[in-house]
């Protein structure tokens, strides 16, 4: 059974179709990339899968369970986690606290215990801090963990979001343009990070414009254009697909996609 399965999923905004009827699935431990030109509907698809948008049609299942339109916090409890294209960092909290908040499902407890700082509450906080520091080290942000998150540069915030998403202990991680705004070195780091996460058995659904990155690390690629799936398959097949080349024609992405294979 697929870990994530999306069937006939679609949504419109004010009469305009943003996503038509999209089908695809993600198997456990796989890296699946979702690519397509700007406005193709990639983020909208993420928003429907993660419960932020109510789809007009179609179904989303996790491990066979219908989770269509389920509230995001309940999806998180089922092992779905994500990052955001337009950063959604907790800017008034420290770097460390951002990741600690990501471990909410594991650290939450009776409110009275938190108000009274009972030993159980403090123990949960300590365990969360230790786990968060480990995750920060994994994304290379272990130094300056006590700083306010607002003091970090853009690329670091992207990695902070990944650490926070990992803190909830996902089985499926949705990454929306994790390498956007990163230089070549940082992109390389993101690349390695994603590979390592996948190596631990966490499935990844990736939206990314950096074609080199996509072609290199994906097991499977889905191409979206104008809200419809126009192609899917292994990186090699997809990059040679005439429909895909046409969708990207003239755009940098198309040349890169073709170039990445040479």
């Amino acid at each position: 059974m697929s870990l994530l399965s999306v069937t006939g999923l679609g949504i419109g905004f004010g009469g305009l179709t943003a996503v038509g009827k999209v089908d695809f699935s993600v198997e456990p431990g796989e890296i699946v990339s979702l690519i397509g030109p700007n406005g193709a509907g990639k983020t909208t698809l993420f928003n429907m899968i993660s419960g932020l948008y109510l789809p007009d049609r179609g179904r989303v299942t996790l491990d066979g369970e219908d989770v269509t339109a389920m509230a995001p916090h309940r999806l998180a409890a089922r092992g779905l986690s994500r990052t955001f294209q337009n950063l959604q960092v907790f800017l008034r909290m420290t770097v460390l606290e951002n990741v600690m908040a990501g471990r909410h499902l594991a650290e939450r407890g009776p409110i009275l215990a938190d108000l009274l700082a009972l030993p159980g509450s403090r123990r949960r906080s300590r365990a969360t801090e230790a786990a968060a520091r480990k995750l920060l080290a994994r994304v290379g942000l272990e130094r300056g963990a006590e700083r306010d998150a607002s003091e970090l540069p853009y690329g670091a915030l992207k990695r902070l979001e990944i650490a926070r998403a990992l803190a909830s202990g996902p089985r499926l991680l949705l990454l929306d343009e994790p390498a956007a705004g990163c230089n070549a070195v940082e992109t390389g780091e993101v690349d390695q990070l994603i590979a390592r996460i996948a190596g631990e058995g966490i499935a990844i659904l990736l939206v990314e414009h950096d074609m080199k990155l996509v072609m290199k690390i994906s097991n499977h690629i889905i191409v979206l254009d104008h809200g419809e799936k126009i192609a899917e398959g292994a990186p090699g097949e997809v990059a040679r697909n005439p429909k895909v080349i046409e969708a990207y024609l003239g755009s940098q992405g198309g040349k890169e996609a073709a170039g990445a294979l040479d």
Partner: protein
Amino acid sequence: MRTLSPKYATLIALIALIALAPLFFPSTFYYRIGALIFINGLAVIGLVVLIGYAGQISLGHAGFAGIGAYACALGPIHLGLAPVLSLVLGAVLSGAIAWLVGRPILRLRGHYLAVATLGFGILIYIVLNNEAQLTGGPDGMPVEGLGLRGLLESAGFAVKASKLWYWLAALVMLAGALLALNLHDSPTGRALRSLHDSEVAAHTVGIDVARYKLTAFVISAVYASVAGSQIALMNEFVSPDIAGFLHSIELLTMTVLGGAAMVFGAVIGATILTALPQVLTALQDFEHIVLGLIMMLVMIFMPEGLVPSLARLVRRRPR
């Protein structure tokens, strides 16, 4: 070397404030002002949890102060409850009402939430005003005192009511501050603060946003209720004004002026806005103008509130 955690720094500062202030009191009348400051401080600490931690607004929290106050007025008469138990009953009632009202209201955001909470406050005020048989209506009603002073006297300790209330209100406020500070760095506190910054992100990491907003609303309602009860017990009298719109605005202004994000800021806000009108009475007609001016200037130059802005200045200084 580890620096003092914000929690202990705040507690020490508050204890110092409480212990040292009486040294500067020219007369026992000032104990009463001090008690009022601490009582307001308690309500404002509750609002720090709601506004500063969770990022929600309320223009109707005086309504909960009213519920707490009238619980102390009516509990002894109609239920035969001791005044202290009436305070507890009021707190439970306020928490329950906050839970019921908060569920639909907290789905709203920003201005809409402000107006809905405003409506709630007005509703409580009108009920207290109109149910004259029960509440005495606009004229208010007497409240049975705490009885602690008599108890102390029979044990051989004679103490003035204003002094007793000063220390009592200080203790209650300290307890309230301790709980709020505990909460700040707990799992619940992190959940509240994260939904303040990004509801979407909080939701996707597994935080039940609606539930935690409600939690903050209920906690702050209980704080306001206990504060209202204390005012009633101290004055041995209560009128519907305690639930009035002006009182809600006063509490909100104290919170924002001092700095909604910090417990210590809230107490400073309560101190300034409780004490200043007493000091400014010398200016007579200009009192309100000066007060308004001070508030505007602080908000223009220190939008985060007095204490967080000053704390930032201190931290920025090269060491």
